[in-house]
């Protein structure tokens, strides 16, 4: 396992990317990087349960939605500042995952995947009916909320840097988890859960904790995203397609390692941007994404980074 050198280049690189819109003041660049940061955070956190532990959480977006709703509710009705509201959102999502995990993590393989889809759809349908959080119409910010942050324009910059912080924290946390005894236990579960238990791994507890960790960060992302958007509604917060985008990113970059998830998110954002803007592909972006996904699954299941990592030992240490 060793210390590893991945963070020493990954974090500085990320900080440079984050600084670009700040220095140039370009709003377009900021929107692009914001999206990248969001994707990176979602992919890296999903990787904890999917890549490290081997559980296919197909409806993972539910935690993003829960975090978003918790934070939005606190901000609107209790005037809570974004930062504490965001942390509350993360904790809410993590608690939900922990409680849920105790039940659904007993399922293995495809049954777990279907159960997580079911959970996401059930929560979406429930929120649709809860009038105190806006029901199907959702909730809207009154623009006066942004006053605390020095106006709407500044509030958006604030949310941008908040997202960047969340991203850095997520990457560091995911990396440390992978390099810890806890991470070793998770990977043992992924490889052979029964063998891991016989070797002494408390699989039940570890899985729940991994699920909670992988829900905590998407919860915070949801909080920041919907703060920036100014409104939240169930269809947006619990959109199954976004779940699958997360899985796509992890697969694209490479299952089980932090650099893979980051790379997958970067490539996906660029790819999606390209397909959506290019007049030739604009209307076909979905079909093309499908073809690419299929090609990855069939011919490069270890993802871009996994593929490169296999080439040399030096690269393995740099790309964890």
């Amino acid at each position, binding site marked *: 396992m060793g210390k590893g050198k991945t963070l020493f280049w990954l974090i500085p690189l990320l900080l440079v990317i984050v600084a670009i819109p700040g220095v140039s003041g370009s709003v377009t660049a900021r929107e692009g990087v914001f999206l990248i940061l969001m994707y990176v955070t979602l992919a890296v956190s999903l990787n904890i349960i999917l890549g490290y532990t081997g559980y296919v959480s197909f409806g993972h977006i539910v935690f993003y939605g829960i975090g978003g709703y918790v934070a939005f509710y606190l901000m609107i009705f209790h005037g809570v500042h974004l930062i504490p509201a965001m942390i509350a959102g993360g904790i809410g999502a993590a608690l939900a995952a922990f409680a849920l995990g105790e039940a659904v993590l007993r399922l293995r393989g*495809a049954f777990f995947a*279907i159960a997580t889809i079911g959970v996401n759809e059930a929560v979406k349908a429930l929120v649709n009916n809860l009038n105190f959080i806006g029901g199907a119409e959702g909730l809207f910010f009154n623009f006066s909320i942004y006053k605390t942050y020095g106006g709407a324009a500044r509030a958006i910059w604030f949310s941008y840097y908040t997202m960047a912080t969340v991203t850095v924290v997520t990457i560091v946390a995911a990396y440390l988890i992978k390099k810890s005894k806890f991470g070793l236990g998770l990977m043992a579960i992924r490889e052979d859960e029964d063998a891991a238990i016989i070797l002494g791994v408390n699989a039940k507890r570890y899985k729940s904790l991994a699920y909670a960790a992988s829900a905590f960060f998407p919860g915070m992302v949801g909080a920041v995203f919907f703060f920036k958007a100014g409104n939240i509604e169930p269809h947006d917060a619990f959109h199954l397609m976004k779940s699958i985008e997360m899985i796509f990113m992890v697969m694209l970059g490479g299952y089980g390692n932090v650099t893979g998830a980051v790379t997958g998110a970067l490539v996906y954002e660029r790819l999606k941007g390209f397909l959506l803007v290019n007049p030739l592909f604009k209307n076909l972006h979905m079909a093309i994404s499908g073809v690419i996904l299929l090609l990855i699954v069939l011919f490069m299941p270890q993802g871009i980074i996994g593929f490169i990592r296999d080439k040399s030992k030096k690269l393995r240490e740099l790309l964890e």
Partner: protein
Amino acid sequence: MLSAWLGAVLSGILLGLLYGLAAIGLNLIWGVMNVINLSHGAFIALGMFSSYFMAKYLHLSPFIGVFLVLAMGVILGMVTYFVSLHKIISAPELSTLLATYSVSLVIIGLGTFIFTTNPRAIDIALGSVSVGGTVLPTTRILTGIFSVIFTLWLYYFLYKTWSGKAIRAVSMNRDAAELMGVNTTMALALAFGIGVALAMTAGALAATIFPFTILSGGGYELKSFVICVLGGLGSPLGALLGGLILGLIENLVTLKIATSYVPFLEFAILVFILIVKPTGLLARR
């Protein structure tokens, strides 16, 4: 009051039979191949469009065209199997889930591009029948009857024909079946083909009742998950029964509570059954 109940029960049964048929394809593929076909909904939508175009350009009644849809579906499904699944059929679930999902992306992506997402409906007027004061459109009754016919056909196929028996053998033990001389690859491809064909058939029938877009299969796909865990895997009759339960729940529960709660109820049932008895509520295993 009584007639309200009777009406709800009757339309619940008819809708339930259609739901059952929609779920059977998913159930078959899940049970035989241990693959959860996430392109199920996309194929249902494709069935809707097939029926629509046959009615529009070939002037073929959907209730005749449905047999053509079935045949097309078998071929399309088998091709899909060889293109997207054959290489990874023994890989972990994530691979097959993503492969079938990518098929769904391709179908829906192309469908959106070609057909847009404007709703369409098949222009069919067959009148209605009055049963005990409840007026039921004939298309609904025919849809229910056809659902039963296709289910019985699948039952016959699986239990009485050589190919069907081969598929069942493969679902029980792939290696043993191979040793007994079953061509497992063809059996798996055929199972997928029939699963897809039944999904398209259900779509073709549903299109006679409700307006639709290329995205309309999604709802049926999610309901099919619920039906599969209700009825248990690998049994056509179980799926039909699961469909009936769901259809009745939808129609009866809405007499008492708001319709908007129904999806919540359905998914809560799904998660609950999975946790309590993942092989399905009515399964023997």
